[in-house]
């Protein structure tokens, strides 16, 4: 018989931990004699043992007799995959358990539609998440909101219009990963983390663009049907790979050019700062999209054809809309020009034309990385929405 001395410790202050440990050290049917100075020890030990299915003899000193009933909870328990590497397919019966944890049998299945590794995974996921987590910035302190500047009225209006356009694009870019985030099995932890940070990035972008728009004006600018229709096609794409392709590779890829353009041509220091920071974030989103789509395409030969179809379908859905609205286009020209002086307008116009060429080059490069040949990449890039995102 094993003897346990609790000293002055009662079961009402954690003594049961020691009793449990002592019971674990005897076989089923084994006896643990419990000694101690707490006057309530015998009363409490009886109640504790009864509630856990163990036998009890009052003594004194009291004795607890181990049964197997408490251990039976772990009969049939399974490991939620391997902690080091995600499984090919995550089981609904693992629920929310940490990868590699031991899961009690009987958990009601928790269905996540995206539970297959090849659909979502990239071996770069942990590294991409770590990079994203390390690169978070605080909108309050990262930007010099008090920086003095004065713009001609029309240029300020142009900046406000571009910000208005950026905001609605960033809202779409927040909603798309957030929707998929809730559909991915948490076994693929790193992917959830990346998408969560991505959504948080967009939340910051929405904040800083809004703040810049309202810095000197009481309200943002114009929102067009064409612009919103283009974004809506992103929200409506139900397939993770295709949504990721349209949003991250083509949309945010093009957006990256636009943000760098604004970082270079922005007429005031705040616009330049916020677009620089946003561009750094967007570059990570593009990198993740490319990375998991490369991984996916290597395993699903038909994926490239599906991606091409998605571009064509989106083009068909949008061909009756106006494309990039004139307000945004003209605002970009004026913003880059910085004044109404005809020579400046010409320089601004050339800069926007160069921006579009830059976007096209970037799209074709990324399409090539996903395995499209040059001709197909050129064709698909030309079909990309005129609304950039």
């Amino acid at each position: 018989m094993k003897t346990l001395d609790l000293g002055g410790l009662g079961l009402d202050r954690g003594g049961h931990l020691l009793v449990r440990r002592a019971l674990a050290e005897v076989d089923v049917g084994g006896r643990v004699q419990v000694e101690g100075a707490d006057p309530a020890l015998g009363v409490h030990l009886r109640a504790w043992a009864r509630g856990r299915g163990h036998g009890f003899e009052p003594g004194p000193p009291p004795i607890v007799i181990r049964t197997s009933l408490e251990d039976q909870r772990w009969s049939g328990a399974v490991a939620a995959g391997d902690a080091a590497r995600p499984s090919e397919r995550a089981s609904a019966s693992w629920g929310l358990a940490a990868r590699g944890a031991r899961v009690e049998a009987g958990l009601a299945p928790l269905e996540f539609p995206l539970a297959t590794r090849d659909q979502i995974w990239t071996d770069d996921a942990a590294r991409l998440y770590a990079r994203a987590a390390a690169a978070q910035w605080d909108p309050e302190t990262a930007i010099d909101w008090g920086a003095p500047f004065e713009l001609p009225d029309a240029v300020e209006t142009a900046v406000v219009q571009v910000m208005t356009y950026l905001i609605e694009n960033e809202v779409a870019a927040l909603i798309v990963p957030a929707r998929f985030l809730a559909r991915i099995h948490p076994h693929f932890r790193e992917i959830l983390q990346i998408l969560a940070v991505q959504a948080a990035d967009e939340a910051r972008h929405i904040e800083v663009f809004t703040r810049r728009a309202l810095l000197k004006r009481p309200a943002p600018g114009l929102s067009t049907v064409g612009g919103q229709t283009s974004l809506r096609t992103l929200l409506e794409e139900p397939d993770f790979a295709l949504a990721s392709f349209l949003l991250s590779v083509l949309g945010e890829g093009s957006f990256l050019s636009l943000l760098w353009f604004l970082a270079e041509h922005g007429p005031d220091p705040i616009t330049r700062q916020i677009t620089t920071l946003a561009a750094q974030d967007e570059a990570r989103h593009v990198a993740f999209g490319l990375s998991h789509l490369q991984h996916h395409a290597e395993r699903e030969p038909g994926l490239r054809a599906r991606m091409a179809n998605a571009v064509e379908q989106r083009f068909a859905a949008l061909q009756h809309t106006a494309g990039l609205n004139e307000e945004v286009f003209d605002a970009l020209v004026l913003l880059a020009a910085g004044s109404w002086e005809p020579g400046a307008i010409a320089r601004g116009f050339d800069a926007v034309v160069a921006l579009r060429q830059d976007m096209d080059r970037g799209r074709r490069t990324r399409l090539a990385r996903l395995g499209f040949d040059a001709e197909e990449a050129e064709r698909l890039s030309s079909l990309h929405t005129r609304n950039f995102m």
Partner: protein
Amino acid sequence: MTTQIVLGAVAYDPKVVTIWEGFKAWFADQGLDFDYVLFSNYERQVQAHFDGVCNVAWNSPLAWLEAERLGARLGRRARAVVMRDSDCDLTSVVVARAGAGIAKLEDLRGKTIAVGASDSPQATLIPLGWLASHGLEPGRDFEVVKHEIAVGMHGDHVGGERHAARDLIEARVDAAAMIDANHLAFSADGTLPAGSTVIVGQTPTYDHCNFTVLDGIDAALLERFVSLLLGQSFEDPRVRPLLELEGLKRWLPGRTSGYALLDDAITRFGTIDSWLDTVSRRP
């Protein structure tokens, strides 16, 4: 002859619905036709059991004795067929404040003791009956403060015992009665701060609830019900949540050896006499 088990249970908590819905689905999977009826109090349930509204009753220890005594008057026989492992060998304690000069039962003479509801076996009837058997007659040798919470539910509701514990700590009474497990729970959750109370006395062991049947139930049907229950394993992930809700690790065959303390108490206090008279004289 009915081929369905209709269980009577008292709705002392919303979880009662979850429990018996769960059992109903599990019994259905085992091919046993099972349904349940909920009652607002045990007296209603015992009457309904005798009226044939249900053929098995999930009875408190007091309801068990009510059924047994009513059966004796009406020429029927009640049997306890299954019980929880956690319903066997309970004790109640009488507790005083540390340092208040109350160390043994005799010190309770002339004092005030808080108890649970007047029909609570564990927090009222058994401790008071046990004190009386030691020569301390409630009302004569000490005063009793009852906490009439959920009367009719036979102390299934923990509120009465918690109120008694608070009365003790806040010095409105000199002592309080409660089941051993609640003394541990109240000590651990701070209702009774560590070291603030002393156990003045502990009753002998007694048993709690059981599934009660009356003579006339179909033997094969009952045998199927009992064997299914006794076969439930805590190892089975489908059954385990139900057992946990109901607070047991395994079912045991019913025994009636653990009701003597309560039987003595209700005889001494005449607790159910007028109820028995009324019910047994019904047309």
